């Protein structure tokens, strides 16, 4: 994977797996790192970000499907619209908390 230093910096900055200290170390003076090493690191980070993005999309889609089913179930038992909205809002907050706690990065 051929890439210049600017691309390397962008990849490191956008990495979902590196912590702040690791980013600082890699961005300290990237021009001093051998090109092959930079390429390898960029490849590893890009692959991880791609997988993380795919996981996020899959997770989002499954959560959306489950939420639609939940909405249908609420309609079926005849829950009032206001109460349904309240429950959906509560659900949205809980889901956000759950998904925020989930990513390892």
């Amino acid at each position, binding site marked *: 994977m051929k890439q210049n230093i600017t691309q390397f910096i962008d990849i490191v900055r956008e990495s979902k797996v590196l912590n702040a200290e690791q980013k600082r170390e890699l961005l300290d003076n990237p021009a*001093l790192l*051998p090109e092959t090493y930079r390429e390898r*690191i960029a490849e590893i980070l890009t692959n991880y970000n791609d997988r993380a993005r795919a*996981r996020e999309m*899959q*997770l989002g889609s499954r959560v959306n499907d489950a939420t639609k089913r939940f909405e249908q179930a609420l309609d079926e*038992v005849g829950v009032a619209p206001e109460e349904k909205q309240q*429950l959906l809002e509560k*659900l949205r907050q809980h889901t956000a908390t759950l998904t925020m706690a989930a990513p*390892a990065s």
Partner: protein
Amino acid sequence: MAENYSQQYRGKVIHVYLGEGKADPPKPEVKKADTLYHKHMQELFDIIAPEAVSERIDAVNTQGELATATAELLREKSSARERYKEHKDFKRFVHELDGEWRGRELPHKLERFLLFSVMGSFYTGLDFVSNYLAEKTFLRKDITKIGLGKSGISLDAADTNGNRKALKAGWEMLSDKLIGLFSDKSVKETTNRDDVAFVSPISDALASVGNIAVSLATPSDKKPIHWLLNSIINPGSIEAGFRTLSAIPLAGAKVENMYIALNKQLLRGEGVLPYGFDVALTMLAAKETQKKDVELVLEHVAQK
């Protein structure tokens, strides 16, 4: 509980009073909605938890890959000598070892050497001109006062009050700072980027300490070596000097590593270097004070 019953009872009474005929029973769908909600939350947890675990495993594996890549880099760094035993090509050995010591390949070494030599000479020339201009204008021997009235600074040819020396040191600092700014600006304009600069913190700090050392410690301003030192010691020339030396194969790699390490210390405020500069400045000031004291004592003895 009693209050609940009471409220329910009051509710029934109101409904009957309004003529609905019968009271509404407690809504079963509310309980159903809660049950559905909890069931759905469990379902969400069952979806999200395995993803979180798999993401964590992936992160650990990725960190492992990064560590392996770094370990391979370090292993590669010490292989030039091994390879030399196989190919026996000295030029190639120097080239590979240089790359290993630097952690990268430095292209255009000769061009860099020449370019930074010229840049360093140019900044030295600028500093020389600034010193020369000062000597020919406000630091001229026949000028006895700068400024008006009591607030003016009095000067004399022998510099008995030290004002000439102080002015000279101040001018040196000011002109050096301007040269440093000029070099940074010229690099920004040349590369068309705002996030780059020429002078690094170590060159700046060395120029500050060096200037004070030269201003205070050198007794005569007529000596060519003093003029030369005064002109060389400025951030631009020092930086160019570092970069010129860094362009030399092998030895330059060590200079470059040292230069990077020193800059890191200064930028992060780590190690002894930041304090070292303060100590050096204090010691120089103390040395000068001691010289003055000795001169005063000798003068006093001579008078007696």
